[in-house]
């Protein structure tokens, strides 16, 4: 029998990093006291109207450009209806018909066989990016059978990034999401911290035989880290294959990933099949964007978003940064991935390189083997490192000038981690770790050793 081919597509909700919500002036803030960031509009008080936040539109345009999308110069908002306690209006404002960005792509790399030395680059197509409102949060208190609603999150701007089913395993999906996360963080369009819910990933998974149509797919939700994303997808693929091989069928259902059990379980779907009764949002005119050509001459700047202007100001994306690192410093491509994977690590590396005589190729070893593993061991971010790039550069300079041995350098580094404010040179002096440069001094030391060990010397001379 032909092998099974898994197919994986992703729907990613990225919370837009903005001061205020998508359609209201309420502040956006993680972990604020419940219902402290709720405007009349967010609470859906009758008569309130949405007013689009310019910053959110710019973030979506930036993201769309970074993901090689075509930006729709005219996009529309729609209402998606369903009743839920944390959706006060009874509908979510989204972009179902004409989203802000379409037809993009995302290139990501992953290593084969867990060896960092063999990396392949793949591409997933981006179907669309749409702007939409986040919902509030429901907290179910089962013992008292009540539901508590926090509307702080209600109305926060989201970008929904829809990826085509171009992936085939958990590792690919994880690598794609990681790359997207890096892009969003580089752009600043989203903080994209999964643990804080700023990046939420749902995976659509199915399996089929080659040459046959796609199988029935399930949607896996409740995934809150990239590691779990890979696990959840791989579990679901395996489950579907086993189910089908045992003569079973796959239901088109929503499943939740249980991170403790490491498996997916069907989610209780109370309402059954939903008809969202989409309708154009009548309170928002079409969202019109301009480029340099179409920009009207006498229009209020506050009211105009120029795609070209945003394009020119896009920062270097991770792929470009990696390429530059490889070309400029001669490091291995896989090392450039590691450098970008940790927030601030590439910058750390670059400033060390700038301050030291040591070749970048050698510096990278210290960065990745020593600094990074220490930080990982102690669960520290690069910014929290007790050893600044200057201290490390000092140390590497001592090594490069052959004032200390590499063994001594490690000793000094170990001392530096303590963060007692000493310079590498002070530590070297204190612990007398210098290498001897003066031949006479060396001869004297040797002589002293010889003199102090007369018997041994005689024994050696005699053989």
């Amino acid at each position, binding site marked *: 029998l032909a092998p099974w081919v898994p197919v994986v597509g992703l729907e990613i909700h990225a919370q837009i990093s903005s001061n205020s919500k998508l359609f209201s002036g309420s502040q956006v803030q993680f972990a604020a006291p419940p219902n402290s960031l709720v405007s009349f509009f967010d609470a859906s008080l009758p008569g309130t*109207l949405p007013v689009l936040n310019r910053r959110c539109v710019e973030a979506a345009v930036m993201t769309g450009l970074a993901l090689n999308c075509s930006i729709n110069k005219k996009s529309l908002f729609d209402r998606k209806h369903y009743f839920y*306690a944390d959706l*006060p209006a009874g509908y979510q404002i989204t972009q179902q018909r004409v989203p802000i960005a379409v037809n993009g792509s995302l290139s990501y790399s992953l290593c084969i066989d867990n060896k960092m030395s063999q990396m392949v680059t793949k591409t997933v197509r981006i179907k669309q990016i749409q702007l939409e409102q986040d919902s509030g949060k429901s907290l179910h208190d089962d013992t008292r059978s009540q539901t508590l609603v926090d509307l702080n999150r209600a109305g926060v701007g989201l970008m929904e990034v829809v990826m085509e089913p171009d992936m085939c395993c958990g590792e690919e999906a994880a690598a794609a999401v990681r790359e997207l996360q890096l892009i969003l963080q580089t752009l600043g369009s989203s903080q994209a911290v999964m643990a804080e819910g700023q990046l939420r990933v749902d995976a659509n998974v199915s399996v089929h035989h080659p040459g046959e149509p796609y199988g029935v797919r399930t949607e896996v939700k409740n995934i809150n880290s990239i590691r779990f994303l890979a696990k959840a997808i791989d579990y679901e693929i395996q489950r579907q294959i086993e189910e089908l091989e045992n003569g079973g069928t796959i239901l088109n259902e929503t499943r939740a990933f249980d991170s403790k059990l490491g498996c997916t379980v069907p989610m209780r779907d109370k309402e059954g099949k939903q008809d969202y*009764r*989409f309708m154009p949002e009548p309170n928002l005119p079409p969202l019109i964007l301009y480029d340099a050509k179409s920009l009207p001459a006498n229009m209020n700047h506050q009211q105009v978003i120029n795609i070209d202007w945003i394009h020119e100001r896009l920062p270097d994306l991770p792929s470009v940064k990696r390429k530059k690192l490889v070309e400029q410093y001669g490091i291995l491509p896989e090392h450039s991935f590691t450098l970008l994977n940790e927030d601030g690590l590439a910058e750390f590396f670059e400033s060390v390189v700038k301050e030291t005589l040591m070749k970048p190729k050698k510096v990278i070893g210290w960065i990745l083997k020593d600094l990074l593993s220490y930080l990982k061991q102690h669960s520290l971010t690069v910014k929290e490192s007790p050893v600044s790039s200057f201290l490390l550069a000092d140390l590497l300079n001592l090594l490069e000038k052959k004032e200390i041995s590499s063994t001594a350098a490690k000793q000094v580094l170990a001392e530096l981690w303590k963060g007692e404010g000493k310079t590498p040179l002070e530590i070297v002096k204190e612990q007398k770790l210098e290498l001897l440069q003066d031949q006479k001094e060396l001869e004297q030391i040797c002589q002293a050793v010889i003199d102090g060990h007369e018997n041994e010397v005689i024994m050696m001379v005699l053989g």
Partner: protein
Amino acid sequence: MTAWPGQPGRAGPQVRDRVRDRDKDRDRAGALLRPTALSPAAPAANGRPPSWPPCQWCRGVLRQDGGARPPRRGKERGRSAGVRRRRRAGRAMLRASLRQVSAALKEGRVAPTELCQRCLALIKSTKFLNAYITVAEETALKQAEESEERYKRGQPLGILDGIPIAVKDNFNTAGIETTCASNMLKGYISPYNATVVQKLLDQGAVLLGKTNLDEFAMGSGSTDGVFGPVRNPWSYSKQYKEKSVPKSHSEDEESNWVITGGSSGGSAAAVSSFTCFAALGSDTGGSTRNPAAHCGVVGLKPTYGLISRHGLIPLVNSMDVPGILTRCVDDAAVLLGSLAGHDPKDSTTIQDDFKPFELPNLTDVSKLSIGIPKEYHAPGLSSEILALWSKAADLFKNAGAKVVEVSLPHTPYSIVCYHVLCTAEVASNMARFDGLEYGHRSDVKDSTESMYAATRREGFNDVVRGRILSGNYFLLKQNYEKYFVKAQKVRRLIANDFVKVFRSGVDILLTPTTLSDAAPYTEFIQEDNRTRSAQDDILTQAANMAGLPAISVPTALSERGLPVGLQFIGRSFQEKQLLTVAKWFEKQVQFPVIQLEEVKRHDSDVFQHQKSASFS
């Protein structure tokens, strides 16, 4: 449920009591109304179009001196001449136009508090009209006092300072109940003011209260609200009583009163009965123009996007506009000037600055081209309105204007198209009323879903529920293309009809506002709301579809002595032209002032000090 700042209050016991009292009063008022002795009505000219009464077309004969009728002998026996004079002056003041009373305030001939108190007293004595849902006596007096201070300091805020106004109860008013005449929002106190309300208050207007309507503005009679129907003040006018067929039994008086039209019937009745100088309505399919026509007042529906909808509880967002009800066209222009313009809180308002204008006195209409859309000769149009319409066309023609018949070919599809678009938006807009954040919440607690269902069943009347159901049906995935998208396309065709006609050189369209004069309540409720709305909106809602400005101007009295209005529809954002023409027309027709007959009430303390209730 955790509370958040600014959570609106729920109805407390006081509110409930007040509502009960209101109902009690209404019942009493209804039961005790009795016919007033009148001179026999002139025989109606049955079967043929009414002759054009010259007195209504030129100033002089009938209403030249409409205000200061001598008090009837015996009514004010025992009162001093001074008291009578003041009383007369006060009554005349209430009948003045907004601009006139504003001038009086400025010149110190009347004080804002006195004006406010007089309005409040009249609201009390005309309570049986049921025009108001909430009378904000305390805050109104406070606002009047503040206004008075400003006048004393010589620093009034402008033409609206101290002017008593009323607002339809589907506009949010901070601190004053906003009910939409629905159980769903009974007792709901909004934490914010609608932009239009805020603008009025910022200009010193005195907000007397909130006026009655059909529940959530869904209706054309102002008969389908939870606080009961609004009675047309003309039901109690000398003009109506003289002409309506005398009944043999006095009980029939009760069944004779006519509706105001709707859904802004409370606002129209309030302006018509002189309890306020201007009122806000809303207009989605004709809800301002229709009751304006039935109540003999001016009803303006501005261009969509000219006035902010922020704070107007929506019916159909893409068609709703705040409407203006006034005694005359000039007053409508004043209100428009104070309300129009961009609102950052409503993205559908125009960005351009709006410049308030004063209306010129048009002397020459020869450059005007008036279009008469033949499709508005709709089935059911009464012969007398048809006759009035052609009289009006002749009026323009005789004054030198070009009057041309035009065609708006898609008009007949307008109502059914409107029905689909309206119910779809209603279904969506009403989704927020789930009992969680505000408004009515059912006691049913079996599950969130059952609570939703019970809340909405208890909170909405049949009309609202019916529209929600059909709207959701039209929005279902399998129906969306078939109904909603098709209706949108038809809407575009209807809008294009207007564009073509205006492009052909026509400046203003002249049409009837309603098919007939106001129906007696008992007759009106024979048909259901949907049928009624379809009939009553037929001449008005195409302007909403196209977003165009339109105004109903009181034109003449029908054979039954009830007001009839004609409608002018203008080009988008060409309100000045529209109102200028309307003002010219208004001047020509000299619509008679309502002569409100005394309403005798045997045991009402409210009327004890108001024996002479004939305030015409």
